[in-house]
């Protein structure tokens, strides 16, 4: 079912309108009330700082983005492996599921100083590791669910075709789990960016977004600090949108009502 351009437009104009109203009133407020930049910089000032130093913005975002990406990859791989084990061995599932639920509220980022000490604080490793750990849990939970939650009638069908467990995994469980994988990724990808960013507050190399925001704020260069924030927002959005694009491209069947 393809949507016409007119259909798409009615979903696009309300948020665009609100965005313009928001930015417009922000700019107006700053100008009319003569608000100092250290309180609230005008969108125009932020834009100036952002576009004025685009190369640095890109480098900084690239640095944090790379950390996030590496952590995302390792955490996802670990999550997938553990999910396969949890599906295959009930014991693993029973151990791991309550653990994942229990650790949901734990600020895993708190591990950063310990990792900084165990591995060299000057390397990227501690940050990538803590990001990977943070990404591991949502990926594990979602992919395990996808591997396990197949319809009973589908399992009966497989049995009637004399399919062995390995075949059932390959032909039924894994394809079934793919939408769940993307649900997890849509949470994990932005989370990886946040983790990579916050991990920078514990010391170490200072060329990332987190460090720069803090140092700009400390030096009262607020326009610049906000510009880095915009760069961080864009980075997070890019990660999310890439996942979304890959999802749409590889699984055209998600979002449809399931066939009987």
């Amino acid at each position, binding site marked *: 079912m393809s949507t016409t351009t007119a259909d798409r437009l009615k979903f696009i104009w309300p948020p665009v309108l609100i965005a313009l109203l928001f930015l417009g009133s922000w700019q107006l407020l700053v100008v009319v009330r003569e608000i100092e930049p250290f309180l609230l910089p005008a969108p125009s000032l932020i834009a100036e700082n952002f576009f004025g130093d685009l190369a640095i913005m890109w480098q900084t975002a690239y640095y944090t983005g790379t950390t996030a990406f590496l952590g995302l990859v390792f955490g996802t791989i670990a999550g997938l492996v553990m999910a396969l084990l949890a599906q295959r061995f009930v014991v693993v599932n029973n151990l791991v599921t309550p653990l994942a639920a229990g650790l949901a509220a734990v600020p895993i980022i708190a591990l950063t100083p310990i990792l900084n000490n165990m591995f060299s604080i000057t390397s990227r490793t501690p940050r990538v590791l803590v990001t990977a750990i943070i990404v591991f849990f949502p990926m594990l939970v979602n992919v395990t669910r996808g591997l396990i939650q197949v*319809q009973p*009638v*589908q399992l*009966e*069908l497989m*049995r*009637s*075709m*004399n*399919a062995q467990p390995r*075949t059932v995994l390959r*032909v*039924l469980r894994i*394809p*079934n789990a*793919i939408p769940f994988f993307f649900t997890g990724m849509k949470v994990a990808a932005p989370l990886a960016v946040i983790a990579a960013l916050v991990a920078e507050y514990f010391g170490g190399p200072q060329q990332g977004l987190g460090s720069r925001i803090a140092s700009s704020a400390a030096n009262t260069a607020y326009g610049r600090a906000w510009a880095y924030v915009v760069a961080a927002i864009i980075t997070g959005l890019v990660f999310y949108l890439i996942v979304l694009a890959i999802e749409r491209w590889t*699984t*055209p*069947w998600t979002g*449809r*009502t*399931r*066939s*009987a």
Partner: protein
Amino acid sequence: MTTTTTQHAVSATGVWKIFNEGQPNEVTALQDVNLTVDSGEFISLIGPSGCGKSTLLRVIADLTDATKGEVKVAGHTPHEAREQQLYGMAFQQAALFDWRTVRRNVELPLELQGWDKSKRKARAMELLEMVQLADFAEHRPWELSGGMQQRVAIARSLAVDPTILLMDEPFGALDEMTRERMQNELLRIRQETGKSIIFVTHSIPEAVYLSDRVVVMSPRPGRITDIVPVPLGDARDEDTREADEFFDAVTAVREALRGHVGGAGARAKVGEV
């Protein structure tokens, strides 16, 4: 083992199925079931909820095992029959895989048997032609209506060309008009292929229209109470639905279903049917 020239398609002898044996919630789903299905025969299993019709089908399909008794499918044990893919099965839900095209759904059993790509494709298209869905081969399951999805499921069940088809209320989720069309389809496929079919249903007219014999079952404990022959011949069509013989057979089945409850006094209970 005696060799017979024409062996039964399916034979069940003294079959019992008891769930939770020895526990307080013990249920006798099947009690001493004896049934033979001849080669090329179409029989229906009909009865109220809990009469064991689906359980019996699953025992035959080796999806569950019998507590006692012997079942033979094309001369083999159910387990062997399943391993050798001697039967095809269709369920109430089509259970097509959303991530495969219609054609690849039909190819699934062939893939599992290790057929090579071009042979699979040819066979799948052949089957889709048979159910008149060849034009939809590259579509996705959700793009098809419920009736069409069931036709694909039936095509899939025929993929390995089994001699026996086991069907568990495959038309149960469809509306009446689609249902009748599907029944005609099934009869036509059977004419063309000569397969034996065991068909579970809730609907008396459906059972009568399709079958050579209707096996009437009743619950608590699940058992066969009657087998009603349906002498409507091999050439059935829409006119058959309005023939006197059809109504007679329907009445016979209906009375057989009521019969187990024991007379007119228990009429209220017939609501179970």
